[in-house]
Each structure stands twice: as C-alpha cells, then as structure tokens.
C-alpha cells in the first residue's frame, strides 16, 4: 500500500479524468490537485494508508450494502404472497377511488330514474331510494375515507415517532414525564373522544384527521421509544457522539433511520386503525358530515335499507372498509417480516 501511494498520486496529477476511483474520490483528488506537494509531504505513508483504508473502501462497501439491504427487504416482501396480493388489491381500490369518479358516468349526487334497483350492468352496486348510483357513492366514500386514513397515519406516525425517539433518547426524567403523558392519553377511549371532537370538527375532513391523529399517535410513540432505548446504546451512536454530532443530528440522522422498519409497519397498522375509527365515527354521525360521503355514513344509510331487503346499500360500503383494512394489515405483516432480519431464519 505504501508503495502504491506515491505512484497513484503521481498518476493523478497529470491525468485527472482517468482516475479509477471515479466520482467518489473526486473531492479528495481535488484537494490533492490544488496542493499536490503539500499532500504528499504532510501525510505520512502510514497516515495516508489509514485514511484511505478507513474512509474509502468502507464507504463503497456501505453504499453497496445499503442497497442490498432494501433489495433484501423487497425480495423477502415478495415471498409473502398475501402481502403482494394485498398490495395489488389496495392499489386497485385506490384507483377505484381516484380514477373511478372521473371515469364513471354518474356522480354520487346525480339522481337517476332507477329508484332502489339492485346491482345490474347499468348500476353495478345498485341505486338508493333517491335513484343515486351507489357505485358512485362508494367511490366518493372510499376516496374520503382513504384520504382521512392516510392523513391520520402520516401525521400520527410522524408525531408519535419523533415523540418516542426524543423520549427514549433522553431517558431519565424527560422520558418518565413524556411517557406518563402517553399513559394518560391511553386512559382515554379514542373512539369516545373522537366522537365528541368529531361532532365539532367533522365538517372539515382535514381537521377530523388531525383530531384522530391526536388520539392515535401513542402506539407509535411507545414502540419507537422502546426501539430507541436499545439503539441508543449501539456503538455507532457512541461513535457519532465521539465525532461531536449534536443530539438533534444523532436522533434524526442515526436513530430514526435505524428504527425505520418498525415505523413503516406502525404506519400501515395506523392506516387500518384510522379507517376503522373514522368509519365508526361517521357511522355514529360524529365523523364526516353530510355533504361529504364516508364509507361509514354510507353504512348508516344502508342499515335500514338492509332490513328492508335492499342489502346492496349496506354490503358494498362495508366490503370496501374491510378491503382497505385487510389489505393494509396484510401489507404491514409482510413488511414486518421483510424488515425483520431475524425473520429469515424462522422462514427458511
């Protein structure tokens, strides 16, 4: 190695573009190009050796490994047939809810002359007693329910994860206080307080989503805190601290990426919880309010219809709630298996 060094440096100076290490080493070489003599003089062969051996090759190995990690995750996820199938179904449901209303000839509030007809070719999901096409209603309901569920999941997981990461990172009295607050929130039934606040904020779906996220973030906070408590003791955190990284940098750059797996899984689970909570509230009349349509409020409308023999108004919205919650849960399960490195052993 020590022999190679001067040789490489000599080569580098005249023909910079031909440098084998490529872009990765460009910065390093750039410095050398400006002050070639200085570099060689200042760095002892041994020191250069350590520098190169310490930064460059691991740098490359790490980059390759990182990609492999996600490839591995993807490959493991693909093995979970149910999760892959769920991903496809969920994608179709999302298409149904987003592209569907654009393509479909009826809107949710268009009245036709077909009153209370069962599923047929012209109305695949039938119509209600006003003659409104039920498939258009289900499309609109699915769209809003999905929108709320994803907003809740994003906001809830985001806040919960950061909360949990800080709590686990600082431990001690901060942790105790922060977790007592979580315990406190857990004593409150989300559905009940959701009903109370939903009555007030239900006419604005975004506010309703924020309220639900405010009630459902605790799960993420607890899990992430537990993960962080173990991750923070790892050597690489110690190394980062030894290099003088600030707490904030350690939390956001080192800890959170390393607990990303559980966070992703929590996110999917929260989507399912949020769909079920929102539709339940909307069913009770404390969620999404009238001109807006949620799958839950469609069930309310269909409840009496079902006992009167017009079951389609009741079955279809329920079916879509189940479809969303079930596929999301399966995807979460697949991700959990895929992201857990210990799981490979159990599967093999």
């Amino acid at each position, binding site marked *: 190695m020590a022999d190679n060094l001067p040789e490489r440096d000599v080569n580098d100076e005249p023909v910079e573009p031909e440098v084998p290490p490529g872009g990765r080493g460009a910065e390093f070489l750039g410095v050398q190009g400006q002050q070639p003599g200085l570099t060689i003089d200042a760095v002892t062969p041994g020191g250069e050796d350590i520098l190169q051996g310490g930064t460059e090759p691991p740098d490359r190995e790490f980059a390759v490994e990182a990609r492999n990690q996600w490839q591995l995750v993807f490959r493991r996820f693909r093995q979970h047939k149910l999760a892959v199938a769920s991903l496809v179904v969920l994608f179709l449901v999302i298409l149904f809810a987003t592209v569907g209303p654009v393509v479909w000839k009826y809107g949710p509030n268009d009245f036709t002359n077909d009153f209370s007809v069962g599923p047929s070719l012209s109305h695949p999901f039938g119509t209600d007693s006003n003659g409104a096409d039920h498939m258009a209603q289900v499309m609109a309901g699915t769209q809003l329910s999905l929108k709320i569920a994803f907003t809740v999941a994003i906001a809830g997981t985001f806040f919960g994860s950061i909360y949990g990461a800080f709590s686990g990172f600082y431990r001690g009295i901060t942790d105790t206080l922060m977790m*007592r607050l979580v*315990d*406190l*929130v*857990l*004593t*409150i*039934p*989300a*559905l*009940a*307080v959701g*009903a*109370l*606040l939903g*009555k*007030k904020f239900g006419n604005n779906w975004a506010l309703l989503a924020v309220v639900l996220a405010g009630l459902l973030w605790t799960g993420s906070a607890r899990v992430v805190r537990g993960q962080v408590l173990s991750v923070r003791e790892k050597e690489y955190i110690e190394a980062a601290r030894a290099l003088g990284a600030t707490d904030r940098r350690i939390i956001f750059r080192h800890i959170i990426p390393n607990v990303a797996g559980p966070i992703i899984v929590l996110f999917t689970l929260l989507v*399912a919880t949020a769909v*079920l909570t929102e*539709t*339940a509230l909307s*069913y*009770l*009349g*404390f969620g999404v309010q009238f001109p807006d349509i949620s799958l*839950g409020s469609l*069930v309310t409308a269909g*409840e009496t219809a*079902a*006992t009167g023999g017009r*079951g389609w108004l*009741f079955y279809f*919205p*329920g079916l879509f*709630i*189940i479809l969303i*919650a*079930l596929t*999301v*849960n*399966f995807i979460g*399960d697949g991700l959990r298996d895929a992201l857990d490195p210990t799981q490979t052993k159990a599967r093999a």
Partner: protein
Amino acid sequence: MLAFTIRRLLVSIPILVLSTFLVFLLVAWGADPLGDFKAKNPPPSAAEVAAREKALGLNHGLLVQYWNWVKNLVVHGSFGPSVQGSAFDINAELSRRVWVTFRLVICAIVIALILAVIVGVITAMKQYSITDYVATLIGFFFLSLPVFWFAILLKIWATDINNSLGTDIKTLGPPGGQWGGFGSWFGFLLLPTITLALSSYATWARFQRASMLDVLNSDYMRLARAKGLSPSRVMVRHGLRTALIPMTTQVTLDVAAIMGGTVITERIFQWQGLGTMFINAIQTQDTNTVLAWLLISATLVIVFNLIADLLYAVLDPRIRLA
C-alpha cells in the same frame, strides 16, 4: 403484597386526577353545552344566555370550572346539572345504566381473553401448520372488520334465523334489567358480547402467539423438558405462565378501546347502557354527562392497570414484593 397494593393505589390517584383534568379540557374545548340553546329561533337574549351560563357554572374561567366540578364530585358525589333538563339526573341515570355496560365489558374481556389464550397457545405450539395459518387468517379478518358493520350484519342474520325458526323476539324489560333466567340473559348478551370481543380477541391471540413463541424458544423450556417434566407441566407451569405476563399489559391497554367499543355495540343492539347515554350526551352537548362517562371509563382503565400490576406479582416469580 399489601404494602405494594397500597403504594400502587396511591400512585393511581394522581394519574386519575390528571386524567380528569385532561378530559375536562378536551370536553370544554370540544363541546358547547349551550349550542342548542343559542341556536334557538328566535335567538335568546344575552341576559338569558348569561343566566343559563351562570346556572351551569360556565361564567367562570376554565380552572375555576374544573375546581368546582371536582369539588362537587368529591364533596357531594354529584356530576353536576345536565342540559338535558332538570328531570335528567346524571347520577341516577348512571347508577341505572352502569351495570348494563360493565356486564357487557367484563363478559367481552373474559370471552376474548379465554379464546385468545387458547388459540394463541395452540398456534404457537403448531407454528406454521395449517391450524396456525387458518387461525392467523381469521385473526386478521377480525382485526380488519368494522365492528359497527359486523354488528348490524349479525343482527340481520339473527333476525332472519329467528324469523325462520319462528321464535318470538323478547324484550329485556326495563333498562339495566334483572339477570332473569339464565337462558334469556344469555340470549341477549350473546351477540353484543361477540361483537365487542371480536376485535380485541384478534389482537390478543396474535400477541399471545408471539409471546408464547418467545417462551417456547427459550433455554429454560429446554431445561424443563430435559429435567424430565411432563409435557403438560412444561407447557402450563413453565410456558403458559410466563407467556401470560406480557398479555396482562396488553389487555389493560385495550380496556379503554373496549369501553369505547361499547358506545357502538350498545347503540346497534339498543342497549340502554352507558354507551347509549354517552351518544345522547354528545348529541345534546351535555358536557357533564360526557365528563361523567369519561371519568367512569378512565377509572375502569386505571383499575385494570392496577389489577395487571398485581397480577404481575402473582404470575412472575422474578418479581418479589417487599
């Protein structure tokens, strides 16, 4: 043990107080008890509104209101006046309904727990077998089931079956009615309990399976077998007992969710319990009733937490209390 119990009980009190405070803030923020009154047509005069506010104690600041509410509760044991009219006495209403709801909650917890432990243990012992996969699939299905929708479905099916069998529909009698004959009581309790138990069952069975798997793969289980203990003794004394410990925490965490679930279940099966009362209270923006319900719910959660902590001591021989 007694000292621990007392100490633990004392810790619960500040949690309960804080919980009531949080709930009080939420309710004050989320509900307007005079909303209906102000929306009347013709609108009431400012003096009338002020008089109402005074009657309900809303003319004070939030902290004073909270203090008055707590004082009233502790000194007089009263939940305060209701906006649903003077005939609506919150305390009387609560005592009339509380048993209806608690019966439902406790039955649901017991049924869900027994089923979950049995299924969890079996699926863990037969990991990756057909039984395991089927049970897991069913669990996922229950987990993803909208409870309100499923409850209505059950009701429709049950009515159809009843009609085809020619059984006549019985009524429960007065709200919070007597236990009556076991048969009729069971009939009324069956569907609501199933509905309420289902979603908790799914989570718990999964949890029990994971915790049992952990235990099964541990060294001391191998040691127990190597000692020559009988398989059932290994499973129950060494396996199940350890695997139940994390479960107690999980169950207590879900008590709040089950309490919330009663709101839906009672509404669909038209039980005159606390859940229905809660819904009516939200509709009329009756803050004091809402607060009373949330207080009862929080108390239940805290009591279950306490029980779980005490159970820990019984279940986990590593915990020795002074």
